Structures are given as C-alpha cells and as structure tokens.
C-alpha cells in the first residue's frame, strides 16, 4: 500500500488548485460579494498549498528517498525519478509564493480604482498560473506512480 502521506499531499494539492479555480471563477464577474468569496478561496488555497508542501516534503525526505527512489532506479522507467520527480520537487517550490502573491492582490482588490480591467486580469492570470503549475504537478505525479508500478511489475 502507498504511504498515506503521498495521498494527503496530493489531496491537499488538489484542494489548493480547486480553491484557486474558485477564486478565478469569482473574479470573472468581480462584484463586491464575489470578491469577498474570492478572498476566502485564496486564503484557503494558500493554506492548502502550504499544507501540501509540508505533507509532501515530509514524505519525500522521510520515505521516498529510501524506499521509492531505489525501486524506480532499479526498474525499467528510471526517467520517472531522474526527470519527473527531480523536476516536480523543485518546480513545486514556486507554487506557495505565487499563491501568496495572488492572495495579496485579491485581499487588496477593493482598494484599487481600476478594478474591472487590469487588476481583474492580473488576478485571473495568477490564478491560471497556479492551476497550470498544479496540473503539471498532478501529471508528473501520475508519471512517477507509473514508474513505480512498472518497477514492481518488472520485479515480479
């Protein structure tokens, strides 16, 4: 059975993405009550992404290196670790900072005078960036899991 921490990491990451997708949708039509909801979504998104960082980080440092990495490296799809895990663990580090930046913009949304043009567009682009990066993380996670399965099948 897979370590529960990897499931928790993925679950929290998905919740973080869903929260920023929610913030994106609210900002499409930025009325006052919708911006209030976007703020709630963004703070939830930041919290979930930081929690995902802690859960994934703990799993990576305490379990992955000694149990999963050697399995993939001895299997037929070593690229699962060498390319995708190496990339994922480092690109992931961008996400919490972009999430904090997005939250800071949404939090101060009401203070801007040009709300419906460039500020709105900025929030939408930042939310989209988080969703793109998060989707990349999920896809890389899928490829890494595939490499583990291939290694287990090869080992019989």
């Amino acid at each position: 059975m897979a370590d529960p921490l990897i499931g928790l990491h993925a679950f929290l990451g998905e919740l973080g993405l869903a929260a920023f997708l929610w913030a994106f949708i609210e900002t499409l039509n930025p009325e006052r009550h919708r911006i209030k909801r976007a703020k709630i979504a963004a703070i939830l998104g930041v919290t979930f992404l930081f929690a995902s960082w802690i859960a994934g980080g703990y799993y990576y440092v305490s379990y992955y290196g000694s149990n999963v990495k050697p399995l993939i490296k001895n299997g037929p799809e070593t690229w699962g670790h060498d390319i995708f895990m190496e990339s994922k663990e480092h690109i992931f580090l961008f996400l919490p900072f972009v999430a904090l930046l997005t939250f800071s913009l949404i939090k101060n949304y009401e203070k801007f005078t040009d709300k419906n043009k460039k500020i709105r567009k900025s929030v939408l682009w930042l939310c989209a960036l988080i969703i793109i990066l998060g989707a990349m993380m999920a896809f890389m996670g899928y490829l890494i899991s595939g490499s583990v399965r291939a290694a287990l099948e090869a080992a019989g």
Partner: protein
Amino acid sequence: MKNYKAAAISTIITEAVIVFLTLFSEMSEGFKNLLKAMTGHHWTSKGIIALILFFALYFAFRKMKTKENDIWKYTKHVFWLTIVFSLIILLFFVFEFFK
C-alpha cells in the same frame, strides 16, 4: 502584503534563486553536501532558504513606490518568468537524463 510590486519582485527573485540552487546543486556535489549539512536534506534547505529569502526581500522592498499601472506589468513578469523557470528546470533534468 500590501505592496504588490514588492511581493512580485520578491516572488521573481525567490524563483530565480530556486532555479540557481537546483541547477548548481546538481552540478556541484560539494554544494549539494553543503545544503544537506544545513538541514539534513538538500531539498529541505532549498525550501527554507526560499521561504526566508521571500519574506526578507519583501521586508526590504515593502516601502518601494508602486502605481496601479505596475500591477499588470509585474503580473505578466511573474507569469512568464514562472513558466520559463519551470521549463529551465524540466529541460535541465531531461538533458541530464540523456547526457
């Protein structure tokens, strides 16, 4: 964080430093060992350095003058540079794999 321009610049510099730490630690075993010695794992050290750097940079830049027009400009910088930095990391490991 009230100053968006300062937060955006802090994000960009932090991401650039993450890219540097990632690539340089793969090219220099000594540097990777130094990162390992800091916290017990090179990746944990990179994360902690990034976190401290981000807030230190924001603290340093927080009084920076900012206009509403800057927001869209800096958002575009953050968006495209994050994509470019991600591709640099991915392509670096693809290159290392096939080397």
